[in-house]
């Protein structure tokens, strides 16, 4: 369906209490900071957040966590030198953590977007990550069964969009954005610029417009 072009506050009104929200970015690269700030203001709580990290410093995701809006984090690397907000909540037993190897995080969201019911993955075999999980030996190699991670809403940052919703990214800020866009019922993209239809090279579009519901222009 057609892609809406609106402001951050209107866009994040799509998030409901209890939702699973996929949040793009690897560190600050590709982090949709304006959308996260709008989500904090919006007030939705009891959220499950899927993102590679669990917030840095006191802003962005860390501020969302500090505001008590997040019930559960699904991420690969919560512990960082400046992840004191998450660390405090975790040690106090106030937040649930599902630790997922980074590639499984990406592939499980891809599976959700691609209609794959589950997949056998070699990552983590023989480690505590695989304990108690269903495994299978295929052609002599052991795999763990992994299930999709679906989002109700994805908040991502891209570089330029056209008005249809096609997206291109910039350098390693691409990271989780294209995968999350496929895995959520509603995808909201914060972009530096919205171009006219026809301005993007069709060979270079990374996220086709079909995956994008809402665009928010945040010039940089």
């Amino acid at each position: 369906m057609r892609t809406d072009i609106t402001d951050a506050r209107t866009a994040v009104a799509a998030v409901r209490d209890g939702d699973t929200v996929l949040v793009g970015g690897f560190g600050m690269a590709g982090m949709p900071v304006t959308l996260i700030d709008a989500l904090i203001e919006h007030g939705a709580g009891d959220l499950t957040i899927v993102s590679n990290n669990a917030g840095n410093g006191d802003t962005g995701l860390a501020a969302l966590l500090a505001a008590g809006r997040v019930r559960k984090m699904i991420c690969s690397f919560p512990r960082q030198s400046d992840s004191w907000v998450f660390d405090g909540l975790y040690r106090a037993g106030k937040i649930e953590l599902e630790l997922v190897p980074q590639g499984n995080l990406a592939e499980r969201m891809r599976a959700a977007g691609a209609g794959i019911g589950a997949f056998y993955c070699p990552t983590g075999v023989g480690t505590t990550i695989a304990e108690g999980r269903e495994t299978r030996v295929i052609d002599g190699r052991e795999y763990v069964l992994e299930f999709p991670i679906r989002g109700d809403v994805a908040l991502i940052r891209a570089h330029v969009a056209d008005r249809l919703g096609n997206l291109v990214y910039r350098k390693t800020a691409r990271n989780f954005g294209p995968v999350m866009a496929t895995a959520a019922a509603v995808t909201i993209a914060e972009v530096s610029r919205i171009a006219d239809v026809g301005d993007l090279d069709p060979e270079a579009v990374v996220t086709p417009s079909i995956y994008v519901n809402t665009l928010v222009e945040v010039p940089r």
Partner: protein
Amino acid sequence: MSLDKDELARLIARDIPSGAYVNLGIGQPTAVARYLDPSSGVVLHTENGMLGMGEVVPAEQADPDLTNAGKQPVTELPGAAYFHHADSFAMMRGGHLDVCVMGAFQVSATGDLANWHTGAPDAIPAVGGAMDLAVGAKEVWVMMTLFTKQGEPKLVPSCTYPLTGKACVTRVYTELATFHITPTGVEIAETFGVSPEEIRSRLTIF
């Protein structure tokens, strides 16, 4: 009056929601593209890796690198995007297409689709992307004649031809009537030149 093929294509084009992402199957459904209002914002997908496909063009305008799923030369519209086959079928299987329109040998009253194999023992099977579309699109619409040349109904209680997908068809467009397949049964949505009663009497699904 029953509808001719062009009228049927126009009817389907009219029913496609504004802004929908749509895959039109090989053969007759391709003609639906001709009747889409450009201002509707409908975006066409082709499984060989493109969104924003334009119309079929004659051979003298053909670009051999730009074809639809039936391998006919087509154009690229502004706002198009190309992607590889795994990404294209991820888009289909993942439930992102709003509508696909396919032909059929048979459709059952519960929405089973048979459109890939006649079941003839000497036939060489070829399935292409039909099964992927059947399980993937949010709505699967079928465009077909209501009866075979021998007068047998093609909307049937249960398919006798090998299935393409189970319980996937939501609408059937034919020259005599359009049908909606709902959880509670088949509904006649519209008839053309015949009465609903006559349609009911000629089918065994009600």
